[in-house]
C-alpha cells in the first residue's frame, strides 16, 4: 500500500561541499523566481577520482527582453575567469534548475544535460523544488542521463526503431544520484553560531496537516500530462490504423495487378509495366516517439512525488490520531 520508493543506489553519490551551494540556490529562487518561472545556474566543482564534488555555483540571469545584447556564453566565461582569481573551482560540473511542482522532464532539459554530460561524464542537474521545501523539507535532487539515453542522443536517432533498438523505457531515462552534504569544521562552527543567535525559531511546517492544496495542484498537473499522453496515444493509434489500411490497399492493388496481368497474358497482350508501388502509396509519417517518452517520464515523476507526499501525510494523520486518543 505505502509503496516506499527506494531508488536502487548503485550509483555513487555526489558530494556538496559546504553549505553555500544550497543557500545560494535557495536565495536565487527566493529573490528572482516568481510563480512558475524557472531559475537556472551553473554548478562549479571538481571531479575527484570518480566522485563528483560540487563546491560553488552562480546564477544565470533570467531571459528578459534585452536578450539581443546579452551573451550567455560571455557571461559564463567572464564569471568563471573572475572566480578563478579567488581560488574558486572553475570547472563547471553541472547546472541547477528550479521546478514548479515537479515538472522538469522536458526536451530542453534533455538537450542541456546531454551537452554537459558529453563534456564531463559525471555532471548532474540539480533540481530544486521550492514549494516542497517551503512545506518543510529541503527538496534537492540530482539527476543524470543513463548511458543508454546518452547513446541515443549522440546518434540523434529519435525515431521508433532507434528507441526500440536501445530498449530505453521511461524508467531508464534519468538516474537519480544521491546527494551527500559535507561541511568543513569552520562551517560547522558557523552553523552552531547561527543556531544560537537565530531569532527565527526552526520551522515545523513539516508536521502541518493542512497541505491538501499542494496535493490538488500536483494532481492537476498529473491530469494535464495524462491528457497529453492520451492525445499522443490517439495519434499513434491513428498512425497504426493508417499503416495497416495502407498495407491492405497495397495488397489489393498488387493482387488486381496480378489478375490483370494474367488476364492479359491469357489474351496475349503485353503485361502492364510494373509501377513503382512505393511512390503510389506514400507511407504515413510515424509520430515521434521521443515526446511520448518524455511525457511518460514526467508522469512517472509526478506519481512518485504524489506517493511520497501521501506516505508523509498518512504518517502525520496517524500521529494526530494518537494525540487525540490520549486526550479523549
Amino acid at each position: 500500500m505505502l509503496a516506499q520508493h527506494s531508488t536502487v543506489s548503485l550509483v555513487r553519490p555526489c558530494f556538496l561541499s559546504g553549505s553555500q551551494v544550497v543557500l545560494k540556490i535557495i536565495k536565487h529562487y527566493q529573490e528572482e523566481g516568481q510563480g512558475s518561472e524557472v531559475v537556472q545556474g551553473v554548478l562549479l566543482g571538481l571531479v575527484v577520482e570518480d566522485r563528483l564534488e560540487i563546491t560553488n555555483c552562480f546564477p544565470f540571469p533570467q531571459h528578459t527582453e534585452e536578450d539581443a545584447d546579452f551573451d550567455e556564453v560571455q557571461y559564463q566565461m567572464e564569471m568563471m575567469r573572475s572566480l578563478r582569481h579567488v581560488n574558486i573551482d572553475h570547472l563547471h560540473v553541472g547546472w541547477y534548475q528550479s521546478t514548479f511542482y515537479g515538472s522538469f522532464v522536458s526536451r530542453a532539459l534533455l538537450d542541456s544535460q546531454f551537452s554537459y554530460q558529453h563534456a564531463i561524464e559525471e555532471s548532474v542537474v540539480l533540481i530544486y523544488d521550492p514549494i516542497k521545501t517551503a512545506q518543510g523539507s529541503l527538496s534537492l535532487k540530482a539527476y543524470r542521463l543513463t548511458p543508454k539515453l546518452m547513446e541515443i542522443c549522440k546518434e540523434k536517432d529519435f525515431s521508433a526503431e532507434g528507441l526500440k533498438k536501445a530498449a530505453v523505457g521511461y524508467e531508464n531515462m534519468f538516474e537519480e544520484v544521491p546527494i551527500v552534504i559535507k561541511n568543513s569544521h569552520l562551517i560547522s562552527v558557523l552553523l552552531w553560531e547561527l543556531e544560537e543567535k537565530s531569532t527565527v525559531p526552526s520551522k515545523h511546517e513539516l508536521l502541518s496537516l493542512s497541505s491538501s492544496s499542494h496535493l490538488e495542484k500536483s494532481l492537476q498537473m498529473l491530469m494535464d500530462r495524462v491528457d497529453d499522453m492520451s492525445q499522443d496515444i490517439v495519434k499513434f493509434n491513428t498512425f497504426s490504423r493508417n499503416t495497416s489500411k495502407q498495407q491492405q490497399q497495397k495488397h489489393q492493388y498488387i493482387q488486381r495487378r496480378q489478375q490483370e496481368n494474367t488476364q492479359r497474358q491469357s489474351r496475349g497482350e503485353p503485361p502492364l509495366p510494373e509501377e513503382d508501388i512505393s511512390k503510389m502509396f506514400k507511407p504515413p509519417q510515424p509520430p515521434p516517439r521521443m515526446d511520448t517518452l518524455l511525457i511518460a517520464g514526467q508522469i512517472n515523476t509526478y506519481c512518485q512525488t504524489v506517493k511520497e507526499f501521501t506516505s508523509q501525510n498518512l504518517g502525520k494523520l496517524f500521529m494526530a490520531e494518537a494525540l487525540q486518543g490520549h486526550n479523549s
Partner: protein
Amino acid sequence: MKYCPTCRGSCVKLSSSLASTLPPQTSRGRHLTRDFLWKNMAVYGPVVKIHPVVLASIADSYERRNEGATRVIGTILGTIDKHSVEITNCFSVPHNESEDEVAVDMEFAKNMYELHKKVSPSEAIVGWYATGFDITEHSVLIHEYYSREAQNPIHLTLDTTLQNGKMNVRAYVSAQMGVPGKTVGVMFTPLTVKHIYYDTERIGIDLLHTTCASPSRTNGLTSDLAQVGTSAARVQDMLTTVLAYIEDVLSGKVIADNSVGRCLMDLLNKVPFIPAEDFESMLNSNINDLLMVTYLTNLAQAQISLNEKLVVL
C-alpha cells in the same frame, strides 16, 4: 580606547562623549566588559540584517585563501532601507596585504559587481567584509575606497580565528572623530547585527545543521517518511524537556514561573477538543482521500508502462 588599570584590559573605560550616548544606567564610571558593550552600545546608524548565505560564502572564501594571506576581503551587496540594511550577497576580491601596504584589485571588484547586477539588478554595494578579529590600519584605507562606491559603507567582520571561542559577526560604520581644525581621524562604530532568514533558508539551515552532529560531518538527504520521523522525534524531545521542568516545579526543586505556566496553558489548549465520532469521520475521510490518490497514481504508472510495452511490439 584606554584600558582600565584595575581589570587589566578586560574592560574599557569610555571617553565621555561615547558614554553620554549610552542609556543612563550604564553611564561612565562603571567597568564595562567588551561583550557587555557590544550588546548595549548605542545603535548609531542602521540595523544590519544578514542572510546566512553571506556568512557561508565568507567562510568558504577564507578556506580558499592564498598561501600566506591571513585574511580575505570582499564586497557585500544588499538593499538599503530607511532604518536597516539587508545584506543578501557577497563576493570576494583578491588583495595583497603586507606590513606597510595593501593592494586591492579594484578592476576585479567592478567587473564582478557588473556581472552580479545582471542577475539581481536590485542589489547594490553596501560595503565590504573582512575576516579576522580586529580592525587594522589597512582597513581604513580600504574603507575609504568603498566610501566612494557606496554612501556610508558598512564594514562587516567575521571572526574566523575564533577568538573568545566564538565566531563573531560584527558590523561597523565609520565616523569622523577628532578636534575640528586639527587632524581628523576615523573611528569605526559598531552596529547591531541581526540574522534574518527566508522561510526556505531556515529549513535549509536546519538540514545543514544536522551535518554538525555526524562524525564525518556528512548528511544524505533522507526520504520523506524518515523526515517526518525526525521531526516527530524533535517534538518528543521538546515535550520531555517540558515534562521534566513540570516535575521539578511540582516537587519544589524549581520555583514556578507564571509566564511559563501561561505558555503551558496555551499549549494544552491548542490541541482542539473534538468529539470522538467527528474526529473518527474526519480522519477516515482524509485517509480515504490519500489512499484513493495512491491508487490512482499506481494506476497511471501501470498505464504508462503498459503503453510502453504495446508500442514496442
